[in-house]
């Protein structure tokens, strides 16, 4: 068992709690840098996808996991980012400008969606985001002169400073670089007064308000940041896929993003990375496992949604903190071996907080 003694103030503001963490994260960074030499092109491209989805999941985690606002229309922000990037690139903007623009456009859309959040909350807010998601999708379909409508839109080659970033190794480094920047930014944001305000709103809106937190301002900010991250992710997604159509950003995509976040573990940064990693890993596993199953079962298109649906329900029922929660338990078990007790992470049952007046 390892006890942490704080002897300097710098330890309080350091991103890593102790040297062990520094060591493991350094190792992870090394592995990420070395990946192109070790992995095949296909695996590397899957890693790029994980990076791209981690960015949008990070944003969704901020909203759902830290601010307690559930968005069922997040794919709409993704679409905003992807189409802004595609449009600006077609008009000759450099990536260094078009990426921030994608984030900005998506972020502004987020503010727009955040505005009803000033009046409604809980389930009503989810329905408002759902409605916005559908409307955004339809707008993309109808704005044919910009987006090409249902027939889709082709994205040009990504060249920054004379280097071809459509090359899978370069693109991988680009994605991982941006993802790591976003993670560090998010870690710092959550330690700032703004981040604390988000968590306070999640835990209790009434008490947050009593402590002088402006609900409207912080909720809108959370939506804006979350949407901006989705915008960045969308821009990268557009370059990765190279051909975008509106139906890639439908309701199902929003649901899947939410599922990734919940499977990863609500309320933890690691969860936002674990979620998409698990999602893509399991997808590969299913593709491989298909051949082992009898063809009547293995060749079904519904196999994947069925498995993911079961996983999600199982996670919510048995492991509400998601994969990250499972990892915490394993780690604690190893750290304090053999003193782990069964009830250490027991979920506290509470009386349901009724939203009714009566």
């Amino acid at each position, binding site marked *: 068992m390892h006890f942490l003694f704080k002897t300097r103030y710098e330890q309080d503001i350091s991103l890593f709690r102790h040297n062990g963490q520094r060591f493991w994260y350094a190792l992870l960074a090394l592995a990420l840098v070395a990946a192109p030499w070790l992995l095949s092109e296909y695996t590397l491209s899957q890693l790029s996808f994980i990076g791209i989805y981690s960015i949008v999941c990070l944003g969704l985690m901020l909203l759902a996991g830290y601010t307690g606002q559930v968005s069922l229309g997040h794919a709409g922000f993704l679409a905003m980012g992807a189409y802004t990037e595609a449009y600006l690139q077609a008009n000759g903007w450099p990536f260094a400008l078009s990426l921030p623009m994608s984030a900005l456009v998506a972020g502004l859309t987020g503010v727009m969606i955040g505005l009803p959040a000033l009046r409604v909350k809980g389930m*009503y807010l989810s329905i*408002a985001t759902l409605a916005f998601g559908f409307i955004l999708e339809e707008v993309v*379909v109808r704005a044919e002169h910009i987006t090409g409508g249902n027939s889709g839109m082709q994205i040009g080659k990504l060249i920054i400073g004379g280097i071809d970033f459509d090359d899978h190794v370069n693109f991988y480094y680009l994605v991982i670089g941006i993802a790591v920047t976003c993670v560090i930014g998010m870690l710092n944001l959550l330690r700032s007064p703004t981040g604390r305000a988000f968590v306070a709103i999640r835990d209790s809106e009434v008490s947050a308000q009593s402590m002088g937190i402006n609900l409207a301002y912080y909720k809108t900010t959370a939506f804006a940041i979350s949407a901006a991250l989705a915008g960045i992710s969308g821009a990268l997604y557009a370059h990765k896929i190279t051909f975008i159509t509106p139906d890639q950003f439908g309701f199902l995509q929003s649901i899947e993003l*939410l599922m990734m976040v919940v499977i990863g573990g609500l309320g933890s940064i690691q969860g936002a990375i674990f979620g998409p990693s698990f999602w893509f890993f399991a997808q590969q596993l299913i593709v491989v496992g298909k051949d082992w199953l009898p063809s009547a079962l293995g060749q079904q298109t*519904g196999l994947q*949604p*069925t498995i993911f*649906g079961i996983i999600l329900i199982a996670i919510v029922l048995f492991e509400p903190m998601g994969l990250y929660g499972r990892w915490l338990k394993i780690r604690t078990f190893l750290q304090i071996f053999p003193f782990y007790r069964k009830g250490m992470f027991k979920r506290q049952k*509470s009386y349901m907080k009724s939203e009714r007046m009566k």
Partner: protein
Amino acid sequence: MLQLLQLIVSGAAIGCIYALIALGFVLIYKATETVNFAQGDLMMIGGFIGLSAMTLIGMPFWLAFLVTIAAMSLVGMGTERLVLRPLLGQPAFTVVMVTIGLGYLARGLVTMIPYWGTETHALPVPYKDEVIWIGGEPGSNDALVLSVEHLVIILATVALVALLFVFFRYTRLGIAMQATSQNQLAAFYMGIPVRRVNMMVWGLSAAICGVAGLLLAPITFIHANMGFIGLKAFPAAVVGGFGSIPGALVGGLVIGIVESLSGFYLPEGFKDVAAYVVVLIMLVVKPNGLFGDNLTKKV
């Protein structure tokens, strides 16, 4: 004028479907304060059960109708018992997430069942493709053309709502359900088995969705993604005021008719989003809906 009437009737028919699904939401929401995102998928399962009963077993329509209702109430009760009840006392978002997962699972699972599959099926109802001409000879321009499918939906909805009214007003179980949804603790003290009643509410709600599925089947056909129509029942429930049964019905009709009219009078594309535009306007102007109660939380 005639055209307007025609649009209103067909809008009202679809609106009735929204209303029935919204009714399912509202029943569950009133009883357990959870929002069931799998309601549309329950409707889809109901449609498939009815289809199997008719085409595989060869039952007549009315019998298949009853079988669907019975089977769907079992499905609803089973879902509550197996998945929802272990989550009692958990935050609302947890429950919402599990219902989203159920819907996702149902859409995948249905395509894996032999015969149901990924194809689109037509339900061989006896009144398929029939029309009634009112106020003129068949084929003339000044007659009002009503599709029997639409009329059946409207009439069946009216009958079902009347039945539900009688059920909630006069039967012991119906009154127990009302009591439970008003105050669980008080109901429990009065000797009502609250958990069992909530299970039955799920059963009732699923059965209503099954009916909606059967009624909708002649218009949209039965397929795995039929449940997405259920998403439009959210606007219906919100417009009516979540937690109000008459509100759900009125909300459904409003959404259905607005959709039908905007499909005709507004440019292409508005029809699909009309419901969502209406709900956003409603949320900004009057978040509690037409019939909803005040939702301000007491500390």
